[in-house]
């Protein structure tokens, strides 16, 4: 078997947590989670509200620690490098790990164009010849280009909810992060917008490693390759999505996905 075939069979691990713990003050919200998120795969995090899955995903780009009193322990390896190592600048980490949030949050004072380019604009890249192709590529990747190409100067907040969320995805993609985190990206959207974003995610994961928190079990089942179930700060079980949804190993996973609690 050639090395190439081997990597195909055993996908490279893009992001991995080892004993990750997250605290709010003295309260421990995530209790030592170890999870591997393979390259160019979509990993879904499911679990009832307050199970720690959102906190977990916010540790993956060191956003958790921005909350006063919050901190994380353990390791998060991005392509083998611990992003919690002393001396690592979280700002640089966040350029490599994009994030899309539950509520669409385009910058209200910026145009659609500026929103998409904001990661670069605010980092000092002002040259239109550099920005134009990036804005176009990102909007196309986010399947929004055709809808907004004639109104790039308009405010981003005038778009519909689904369009705003795709704008946020384009904004995150513009800085070309190898990893994209999504915290319930469709929970504020209608079914059609949701379907569009799911379709988009299937396309995106060919180039980007995606980690997504979702409350929608059917969504996790539809589009993820790997699913991890969180409960009360622990990761109860993780595995291939079809296995989790047809034959979970843990009783608690079974009870949650069949709707017996949560």
């Amino acid at each position, binding site marked *: 078997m050639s090395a190439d075939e081997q990597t195909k069979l055993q996908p490279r691990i893009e992001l991995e947590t080892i004993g990750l713990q997250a605290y709010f003050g003295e309260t421990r919200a995530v209790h030592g989670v170890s999870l591997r998120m393979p390259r160019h795969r979509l990993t879904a995090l499911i679990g009832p509200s307050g199970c720690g899955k959102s906190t977990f995903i916010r540790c993956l*780009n060191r*956003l958790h620690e*921005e909350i*006063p*009193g919050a901190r994380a322990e353990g390791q998060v390896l991005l392509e083998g490098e611990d992003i919690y190592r002393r001396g690592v600048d979280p*700002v*640089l*980490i*966040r*350029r*490599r790990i*994009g*994030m899309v*949030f*539950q*509520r669409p*949050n*385009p*910058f*209200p*004072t910026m145009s659609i164009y500026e929103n998409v380019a*904001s*990661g670069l604009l*605010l*980092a000092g890249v002002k040259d239109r010849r550099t920005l134009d192709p990036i804005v176009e590529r990102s909007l196309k990747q986010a399947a929004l280009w055709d809808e907004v190409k004639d109104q790039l100067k308009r*405010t981003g*907040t*005038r778009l519909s909810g689904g369009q705003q969320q795709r704008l*946020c995805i384009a*904004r*995150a993609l513009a*800085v070309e992060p190898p990893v994209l*985190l999504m915290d319930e990206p469709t929970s504020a959207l209608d079914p059609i917008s949701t379907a569009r974003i799911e379709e988009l995610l299937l396309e995106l994961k060919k180039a980007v490693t995606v980690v997504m928190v979702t409350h929608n079990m059917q969504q996790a089942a539809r589009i993820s390759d790997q699913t991890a179930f969180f409960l009360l700060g622990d990761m109860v079980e993780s595995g291939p999505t079809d296995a989790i949804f047809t034959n979970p190993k843990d009783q608690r996973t079974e009870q949650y996905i069949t709707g017996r609690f949560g």
Partner: protein
Amino acid sequence: MILLVTGCALAVLPLLAILMHLLREGASSIDLNFFTQVQKPVGELGGGMAHAILGTAAQVGLAAGLGVPLGLACGIYLAEYGGRERLAGPVRFALELLASTPSILVGVFVYGVIVVPMKKFSLFSGALALMVILLPLVARTSEELLRLIPQHLREAGLALGLPRWKVILSVVLRSAWPGVWAAILLGIARIAGETAPLVLTSFGNPTFPRGLDQPSASLPLQIYTYAISPFDEWHRLAWAGALVLVFTVLALNAITRLTGGSNERRRAD
């Protein structure tokens, strides 16, 4: 309902009365001289308020130049870092006390700290007193306004790999700017009309100030000087000065309203 309307009318009445009276007494005295001449010796006809207008402009400008950045810095510190900093509580408390201090006490304070050691009244000390009044206004309102900017916008910026200071300036402050700008204008309008602290600091001056360390006239003080004099000519100028002062303050408020209004329209989208 009728009671409410009557109440509102009673509330607006004094303002209208003041404006009418000022217009009647002062409008005729506003001419070119008013804006170009300084105080004339008693008995001479004419004279104007140029020195007072300039003095007020200089003192308010200086106070704003110092107070606005400092106030914004305080507001940003309290809103954006206040949650995790021990210093935030005391700072907020101090600003609150400062905001509710009678302005004459601010004057006394600056008198004690600046005027007495320097052994003279000065434009600079007047500006300083006005700044001390402006700073808590800008700080407290900008803090409140920055707090209104939803957390998820900050997170959006941070998640893009922007440093915190950049997120605060380019995203948070920019989003809150229309409101903050309004707060700054209102603050300036407020200090432009302050009289009490200036009596003990810039003191007043019948002619143009010759330096920052020299006593300076100001519109409110000059009105006071003219008004308590026994001379009709000066009374006339006092009315005109009062009219200019009131309209300046009104204009500032109006500008605030207009910019604030456009801000609300944008939010509603």
